[in-house]
């Protein structure tokens, strides 16, 4: 996973419901449910925020230390990547 600017694929639909997110990848015929933490990270995969910035915001919002947040962000982004949800050209 690159340290750069993760970005959601533009052709993926997502809807937020009560802090969680439903992500529809029609191209892959898959639908995913993101928990609150993954939703927080997903929403910041905008191609502008760096991994470090997302981790900082996560640490602040979820009241965890930066290293824990950074590890959670990296693990989650890795999973997004495995699922093909990120725009690989921007990672």
């Amino acid at each position: 996973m690159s340290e750069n600017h993760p970005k959601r694929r533009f052709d993926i639909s997502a809807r937020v419901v009560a802090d969680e997110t439903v992500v529809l990848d029609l191209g892959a015929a898959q639908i995913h449910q993101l928990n609150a933490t993954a939703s927080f990270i997903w929403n910041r995969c905008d191609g502008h925020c760096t991994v470090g910035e997302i981790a900082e915001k996560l640490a602040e919002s979820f009241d965890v230390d930066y290293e824990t947040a950074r590890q959670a962000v990296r693990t989650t982004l890795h999973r997004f990547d495995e699922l093909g949800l990120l725009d690989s050209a921007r990672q």
Partner: protein
Amino acid sequence: MRCAEPATYTLVAAAYGEMQDDASTIDLDYTVGQNGADAAFYIARPGQKALTARDDGTFLALFDKDIAIELQKLRRDLYFVHAAVLTRGEAVMLVAKPGGGKSTLTWALLHHGFGFLSDELAPVDLDTLEVHPYPRTLALKREPPGSYPLPRRTVVTSRTLHVRSVPGSVVKGPTPLGALVFLNYDPDATGPKIRPLTAAEAGARLYANALNPLAHAGNGLDGAVRITAAHPCYELVSADLSATCALLARTLEPSE
């Protein structure tokens, strides 16, 4: 529907008799029957190539599939879900994979005060969140456990058992949705279990069972989320049928 010979008429009446109506307008025009030569069943509609089936079970399965598709074309405004629907005041949608025990549990729940809205198709009005009835006869793939025997009038085909009279009431009008239950059958479960689902998890599961999501806004994602966000949703792991019914009935009791 036109059907000239009695054997096919009996079969169709067994499966769709509850839908019989003296409608003044015709939305779908079917002619069904059996060919004399090879006794194959046929399903014909004006302007369409006739479908044929070698036996009664295949005939009803083909007819089921065809009518489900045509209804989705006729009522694109409705959000069709592959699910059974029972009523207990409000509608309870039972969603499961094919072969997941949906019809068997439906049959059992009808002995526990639930009414019958559908065994197969749940057309939801996304504006009112009401479920429309689809009272095709309850069709089981196999005999239910002994504590829920089938009535004598059950029609047996090569694939299915069609229950012509159910113990609960058959609801014939749109009914407000009250809850969604996603059914999992676990042969190794020692007892039934139920847990609430978040709207997001239920939304993802509901979408996976939607039949015409692409006819709706946001490729159907908006509809799935609207339905699950507005109602309690559960995952039910079924086991012993009586215990599963009792657990579900208790869960759906209105809280004081």
